[in-house]
């Protein structure tokens, strides 16, 4: 079975909601839509207090090339445009909408009918994706259109669809594949057309045999789409690791992934592309896995973007008494939050409610140089050495040992028997070293 070639770990999968169908979450009373839900410049609001909006109404326009449109996920009245405390605890501008009814823009096709043919050319597809505010919803939220328009000297050869879902607990992509296989296939074909390639691979880890089976069956009717079964290994969903696993090419340090000839898109993004291009539907809702060992009703919830996290936890049976940590995303790379009133955004793939007993870090002890972090690092780095270099402030060693290649997957901290928080140091040092490199480059340009 295929997999990536360097490092990796296999955490306990804990896919409590595997096979759970998609449940529709109820509408919030008030939706809070962040103006920055993507990598790049925040969108610029084009509505004002008191405006009436429908589901799908454009609320904010992309501000520059690396940015994305934002549409209203609910219908109702714009209550205010003001700061909100986001999940990280920062004040961020957002549009507050008091929900009234559920009226959709007439242009959106809400029927379940499958529309397989698409007559648009590549540029028209990309424009549509841009217009509908599609971003990579595997977690990184990079505007999709940017990835579909690589620099002119790099020609895409294949499309790789990321359906790996290697994070423990998360099952939102799995649920989507079981429910929307046909739509995903069409979405993949549209993406292939957009980047002008004839071959696409859908990489799925072996712990989703039903999804592999179903998509393999569907792929028979779609020329050039191949399902690749992958060995379960984290961080296979990392873009660089996935390209290595599927086509055996490694992105050189500092290079764009497309330099290998591969464009990677998440499977849920492919579905969003289908809805945007074929159904005129902007990115206004997504599947969120709400999970945790003590939740009464963990599940895969189809929820409008901008719902408070707390409301999704209510849908799943309410916050358990013994909750100690709430993570947005999966347990390996997700972010812990204290603010459960924060709104969800386009990138919210999961809400993980952890018991108090699993919430606390264990006191670190001295490094015993067991080399488990070196063996686990999927980028071939030396986490023990990098963290030590950062701890003593020696950024020259950190740079020489390529700290900037770190993808912050957490395999090192995960595998350290001394419970050293290697990634904490490396993340900090990486920021420092990147700053040093930028300053040096600016200096040489002068």
């Amino acid at each position, binding site marked *: 079975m295929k997999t990536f070639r360097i490092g990796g770990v296999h955490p306990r999968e804990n896919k409590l909601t595997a096979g759970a169908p998609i449940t529709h979450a109820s509408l919030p009373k008030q939706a809070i839509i962040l103006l920055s839900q993507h990598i790049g410049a925040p969108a610029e609001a084009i509505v004002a207090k008191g405006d009436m909006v429908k589901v799908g109404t454009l609320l904010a326009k992309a501000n520059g090339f690396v940015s994305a449109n934002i549409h209203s996920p609910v219908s109702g009245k714009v209550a205010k445009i003001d700061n909100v405390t986001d999940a990280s605890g920062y004040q961020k501008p957002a549009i507050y909408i008091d929900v009234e009814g559920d009226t959709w823009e007439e242009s959106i096709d809400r029927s379940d009918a499958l529309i397989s043919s698409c007559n648009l050319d590549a540029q028209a597809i990309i424009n549509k994706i841009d217009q509908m505010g599609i971003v990579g919803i595997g977690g990184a939220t990079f505007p999709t259109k940017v990835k579909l328009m690589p620099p002119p000297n790099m020609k895409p050869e294949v499309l790789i669809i990321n359906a790996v879902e290697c994070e423990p607990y998360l099952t939102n992509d799995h649920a989507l594949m079981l429910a929307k296989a046909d739509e995903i296939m069409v979405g993949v074909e549209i993406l292939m057309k957009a980047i002008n390639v004839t071959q696409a691979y859908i990489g799925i880890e072996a712990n989703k045999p039903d999804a592999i089976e179903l998509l393999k069956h569907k792929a028979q009717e779609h020329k050039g789409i191949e399902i690749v079964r992958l060995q379960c290994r984290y961080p296979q969903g990392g873009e660089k690791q996935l390209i290595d696993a599927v086509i055996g090419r490694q992105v050189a340090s500092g290079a764009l992934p497309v330099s290998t000839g591969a464009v990677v898109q998440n499977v849920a993004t492919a579905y969003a592309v289908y809805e945007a291009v074929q159904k005129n539907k902007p990115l206004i809702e997504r599947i969120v896995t709400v999970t945790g060992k003590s939740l009464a009703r963990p599940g895969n919830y189809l929820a409008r973007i901008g719902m408070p996290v707390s409301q999704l936890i209510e849908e799943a049976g309410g916050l358990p008494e013994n909750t100690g940590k709430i993570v947005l995303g999966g347990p390996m790379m997700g972010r812990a939050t*204290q603010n459960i009133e924060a709104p969800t955004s386009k990138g919210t793939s999961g809400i993980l409610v952890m018991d108090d007993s699993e919430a606390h870090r264990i006191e670190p002890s001295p490094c015993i140089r067991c080399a488990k972090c070196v063996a686990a690092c999927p980028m*071939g780095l030396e986490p023990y050495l990098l963290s030590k270099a950062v701890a003593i402030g020696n950024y020259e060693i950190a740079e020489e040992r390529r700290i900037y290649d770190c993808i912050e997957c957490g395999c090192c901290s995960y595998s350290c028997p001394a419970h050293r928080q290697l990634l904490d140091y490396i993340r900090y040092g990486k920021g420092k070293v990147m700053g040093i490199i930028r300053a040096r480059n600016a200096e040489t340009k002068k």
Partner: protein
Amino acid sequence: MNKLVVSPSPHVHSGLSTTQCMYGVLIALIPAFLVSLYYFGIDALLVTATSVVACITFEYLIQRYLLGQRSTIGDGSAILTGVLLAFNLPASIPLWIVVVGALFAIGIGKMAFGGIGNNIFNPALAGRIFLLISFPQQMTTWPIPAPWGIGVDGQTGATTLSILKRGNVEEIVNIDVLETLVGNAGGSFGEVSAIALIIGFLYLLWKKIITWHIPVSIIATVFLFSFAVTISQGWEYAIIFSELQIFSGGLLLGAIFMATDYVTSPMTPGGMLLYGVLIGIITVVIRLWGAYPEGLSFAIFIMNGVTPLINKYMTPKRFGEVKRHG
């Protein structure tokens, strides 16, 4: 409700702890310990118990009264040092010498460098070498193994290594390889049974406590190098000679349990292989042409000192520098 914890990712852990690694190695040493009890009786037990108790006590006293630190004796590493030191001693050694060895191992070998994780040399090995140089007679007086240790008193026998060193072809071809595999041979009591040590090795591999690189590279190098040196005396002799080099002396104990010590061995697979090959070469050189019959302790000790240099130059295979496949 409790306060929500906020910490950076990752939010889960493999569950493996330093203590588990240490106890895993101790479990892997149980077969060798049982064999030593069979062949050397109560003496083996006494030496081991003395060494372990002395190591724990010295570590505790040094941390508590000299350094004013929190004690780390619970992590199992002092116990492991105690057991490994004991396994490298003759069963008949006076117990006070064991205590001296433990003091050197823990005091100089480990705590003087800053305790667990900071020592350059394997503490148990430091203790053994110190004793070998300080008490050469007691350290090379080997009791003859006997079932349940009965009749051990006062008798000393030749070790397989000393026979190999003498180089008398007739004597060498008469050594029963099978006996050295089981452990019915003279030597430090933890090192005599090749089979018991290999069982321990398989356990360590199965539990992923160590990787194969260091033990296999040492063993392969010792075999091939010995073979190359003796091939002029004929195939048959060369094979017996090389086999005995592997199954005798502390080779397996050292290759599997001493050279693989986390703290003092290299961090990358390539570094581990280089380290193993060099240990193998130095071992054979000392065994065949040096003053001592056994060279493994010195070889590991020397390479412990080279480990930081190996770590500097033998970096892991970086992502993006691997050749394309497919």
